[in-house]
């Protein structure tokens, strides 16, 4: 798919994220918006053998959202990809909805694992990758981690495991926006340098200077696809809140919903961005 098409989809995903979180009156827009391009690249370009009409297809590539709080981003891309109606996104976090605050694999079509408690998803992804190795199936497993999530010890237990078991069918993506709830990584308890840490756990490490740029994402995933004998970590520098100017690079928008006025402003900005993309 051309970059322009991906950009248009990502812009729709961003509108969906803001709409869903606004409707829920809670949720995590910042990380979801920052990772919207990664979500879009994965579901429209990278994941093989996925079928919105057969979400449990046995030979599909898997995706585990280890940073489960970015569920609005995952739900939005799944809706854009056709797993369920876009109109349902406004039920996010409402009683009885199949769109829970954090992903539930038994509720939502296309969600491969229930996540939300940080550090666990990456271990689960290791288990899925190991299953493919044991059964001889060819699918690949992707997982998206937050940079703050890398403060969890389990991330490094999982990294040790993936490196030791040579899980070359596993790609760990880190959404490196340098912000977490209480401040910047440095202000809280910095897990940096991430590249050297993953390398020391026997990962092939790819650093992406702009994780909101499809050329750079494409180059990184292509490089990862050629790596054999070890897992790959793609560390993507992203802008938290990307696409909604007042949310960009602000940890205040980590887990807060826009009010009606802010919502209108965000949607206007995204509408204009979409129109600009259509002019190209």
């Amino acid at each position, binding site marked *: 798919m051309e970059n322009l098409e991906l950009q248009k989809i990502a812009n729709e995903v961003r509108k969906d994220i803001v709409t869903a979180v606004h409707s829920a009156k809670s949720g995590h827009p910042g990380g979801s918006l920052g990772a919207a391009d990664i979500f879009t690249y994965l579901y429209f370009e990278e994941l093989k053998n996925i079928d919105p009409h057969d979400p449990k297809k046995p030979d599909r590539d898997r995706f585990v959202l280890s940073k489960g709080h970015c569920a609005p981003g995952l739900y939005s891309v799944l809706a854009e990809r056709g797993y369920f109606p876009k109109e349902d996104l406004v039920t996010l976090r409402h009683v009885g909805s199949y769109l829970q605050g954090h992903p539930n694999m038994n509720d939502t079509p296309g969600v*491969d694992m229930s996540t939300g408690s940080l550090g666990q998803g990456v271990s*689960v992804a290791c*288990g899925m990758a190991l299953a493919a190795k*044991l059964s001889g199936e060819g699918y690949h497993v992707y997982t998206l981690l937050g940079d703050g999530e890398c403060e969890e010890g389990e991330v490094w237990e999982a990294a040790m495991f993936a490196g030791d078991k040579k899980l070359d069918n596993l790609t760990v993506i880190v959404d490196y926006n340098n912000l977490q709830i209480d401040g910047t990584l440095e202000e809280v308890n910095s897990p940096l340098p991430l590249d050297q840490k993953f390398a020391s756990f026997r990962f092939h490490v790819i650093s992406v200077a702009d994780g909101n740029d499809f050329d750079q994402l494409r180059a990184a995933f292509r490089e990862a696809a050629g790596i054999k004998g070890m897992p790959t970590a793609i560390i993507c520098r992203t802008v938290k809140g990307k696409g909604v100017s007042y949310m960009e690079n602000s940890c205040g928008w980590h887990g807060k919903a826009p009010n009606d006025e802010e919502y209108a402003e965000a949607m206007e900005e995204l509408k204009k961005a979409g129109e600009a993309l259509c002019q190209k």
Partner: protein
Amino acid sequence: MSEVKKIATRESYGNALVELGKKHDDLVVLDADLAGATKTGIFRKAFPERHIDCGIAEGNMMAVAAGLAAAGMVPFASSFAMFAAGRAYEQVRNSIGYPHLNVKIGATHAGISVGEDGASHQCLEDIALMRVIPGMTVIVPSDDIEARAAVEAAYAYKGPVYLRFGRLAVPVINDRPDYRFEIGKGITLREGKDLTIVATGLEVQPALEAARKLEADGVDAEVINIHTIKPLDEALILASANKTGRVVTVEEHSVIGGLGGAVCEALSAKAPVPVLRIGVNDVFGESGPAAELLHKYRLDGEGVYGQIRAWI
């Protein structure tokens, strides 16, 4: 008693895994650097390619097991009860319990009979921790025969199962032709009219011994083996409680939240009779030979008998 065959249920676990492994290619065994102690080493010898040593990282191991199950394998994840149910509690709760994945947790070295290693390794809280997780099945086998049957039943069952095994060699008590294991079905080992003793795991044998001693005193005790703590065989326990009017629970676990807690929860609503909960009384354990500890904490036949005598 000297000719009675004794075997630790952890040994039964390892042996049962090998038998199941021969029949089922999707069975995978995980361990956390304790394969020799948990006896999954027996499986590793037979099926090295399906034995995954995860190293000393139990939280990761439980979530790896969840991933294997999500991809269609049937993992048995093994460690000491302290680390399987304790350290990895939240992984078990969120990555196995919440999505109701088909993971079997084989927890060995449960209870005070761990012995010399002492309190840090004597898990007395695992039944409580595991049974409070929605959808989790909790099984505590009493001997070799029951342990092997439980492992087989756990494999056949679709959903998360916590299996609690011991380190100490215990007598075989279920070697009868009519023995049949079914998840959630208690077994009446002795009928009586004066008192119901509900026991689980390695406390079933001391419970039987206590019942024999009570008989000599003219007290006719019914003994029920509850190998499945969850789902609890409420019908069997309620019927017996209604018949005898008094219930004693016996377990190698804290008196808070385990079998005693589960039985009281069932009885309080439907048959509120007096209950004596025998177990470890809200204290940590200590080092010592297993038999001596069971004696000190009054969990051997004599101790269980003495506690019941003092109560009735």
